[in-house]
């Protein structure tokens, strides 16, 4: 039964997941094409200097990509469930309802981890080809909250979609819109180093939030 649920999730999201990952890789391609171009046109030493001392973030166009991916992925996975209240069919299965929701969420989270993981690995690998580890490490610290924003948005958008009452959906949207910028505050390269760990833990804690909406949906809250 669990395998079937996971397979159902896979059917729903597979093309979105593949396309979003390809989009991410495309953006990385653009970033490093830009790096190669700028390295040649402004000399590598001047380019390094601009990164080290003038605050140039060669990867700045990446900032909202994981967020966008998280939002689209949440819609791809949860929107079909509320069309004609299809998720109610899942709730009628002889399975623990919380567990079903958690498995769906876990599936989505693992999918995003794989997709983001590929991007982060490519970002790190290509970065290490062009730059010294000091530059790459600072870049990794800076992009971490951007990817966490993707996870945060995924969990909260899922909560919004599963919420049955429109008024509360709007309230949750307002909170989400105010909350997500915490991950995206402008910062110098490496400026997020004291907070990345706590943000990661915090994002993991948010993951169970959609149980609340699912519960309200299940009970037919009006």
């Amino acid at each position: 039964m669990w395998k079937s649920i996971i397979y159902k999730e896979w059917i729903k999201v597979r093309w979105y997941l593949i396309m979003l990952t390809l989009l991410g890789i495309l953006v990385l391609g653009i970033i490093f094409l830009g790096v190669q171009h700028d390295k040649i046109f402004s000399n590598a030493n001047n380019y390094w200097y601009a990164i080290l001392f003038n605050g140039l973030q060669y990867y700045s166009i990446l900032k909202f990509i994981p967020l966008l991916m998280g939002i689209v992925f949440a819609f791809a996975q949860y929107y079909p469930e509320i069309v004609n209240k299809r998720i109610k069919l899942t709730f009628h299965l002889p399975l623990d309802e919380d567990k079903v929701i958690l498995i769906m969420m876990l599936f989505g989270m693992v999918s995003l981890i794989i997709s983001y993981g590929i991007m982060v690995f490519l970002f790190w690998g290509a970065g290490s080809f062009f730059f010294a580890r000091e530059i790459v490490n600072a870049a990794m610290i800076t992009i971490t909250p951007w990817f966490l924003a993707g996870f945060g948005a995924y969990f909260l958008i899922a909560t919004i979609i599963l919420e049955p009452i429109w008024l509360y959906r709007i309230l949750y949207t307002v909170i989400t819109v105010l909350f997500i910028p915490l991950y995206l505050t402008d910062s110098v390269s490496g400026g997020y180093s004291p907070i990345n760990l706590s943000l990661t833990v915090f994002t993991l804690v948010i993951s169970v939030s959609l149980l609340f909406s699912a519960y309200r949906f299940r009970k037919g809250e009006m």
Partner: protein
Amino acid sequence: MKKISRYILVLITIITTMTALPGLYWLAFEKPNRAPYLFYSCINNGFVVQRHQNGKLIFSDLKGDKYTRSKYEQKLPLLYIRQLLVSGTMPDSIHGVEIDIHKVNRNRSFFRLRPKDISSPKPGLYPMFESRSGRVNLQMPKDFFRIKSRMEFINANTNTVEERKSELFTSALQHYGFAFPSKMIAGIPTTRKSCDEGYFVIDANNHLFHVKMVRSRPYVKRVKLPEGLRFKYIACVDFSDKKYYNYLISDKNKIYILTQDDYKIIRFPVEGYNPKREELRIFGDLFNYSVYMVGKDHLKIVVLNKQYQKVDEYQESWPNRTQRMEGKVFGYIFPAELSLSKWYSSYNKFYFNRTAGFHWLFLNILLLILYFFILRKRKIDPKKGIIDFIIIGITGIFGFIGVLCFPNKFYD
């Protein structure tokens, strides 16, 4: 589990509103506070001041004598030298010293160190300039160095270590007893300076070294420091008088300078500097150094003569925003505020500020009563909402919004 998920959502709301609402409040109601401008007058041998009063700019001295703008500028001839030369009011000599514009300019210096400069991620890689190339302009080198288990130069074009150069500098540092890795590297990593003096590096044993490159060879000098003296920040300077290499801030927040060529450590007789919350500004002129320590609600100035002895000092404070009307009202509404960035640091973290006093308790109690009636209206037993009451009691308006957004309505 679902109940926990509700509290997680309430927590998110508390964090969000604790960040957003106080931010919006200050955006709407915070009033500017114009700090006075004080300068030490070499004519009066005392401070003169510019203040905004009722929308007007008032010039005076500390005794209360008021000046016109031009009279005020004449009290500060070294600061307004160009204006005084144009208006023909520049004195020929001051305190028996003949005034020559070149001499005045050579002795003029300005230095600023913000708390944010100290509390910020360091690049870890630095360009080592050729300090005696024979050229007028400095050139950006092709490599950048790090000092970890050895001194390594990394070619930016190939992203590989330049072994020969790295070996050369590592051996030179080892020869002078440098203990790897470095704890701090300070310099002026720009080609826009009058000349290059390389870097000042603190090694693993807290010893201070001067390292530069002279005709492609390493120059290393170990600076003798008084016993137990440790530095938390070094800011190198490039002033025309070439008297010292840098300002050094000790771990006990004392300000030192390191004199050029003879490497003498001299302490400024300045007390009470707080590098975490105060901006340090040091103005130098022909006769004095004025050391300013500027906080959000106060200003301290110590004036030194050219022998670095204290000749005058002044301090003033004014109400900060929490002490003003808008801050008092804030104290009645918000029990705390949270932000991810602060003016005194480049690092992002959760900066939690509890509001001073307990005026916010009034609103918290009001919200508790209101929540009680809301639960009654929703026909929910208030006993089931005990945790909600605790949340509102502690976090006030933030928790109130949180528990209302995510209703405590469970069917079992």
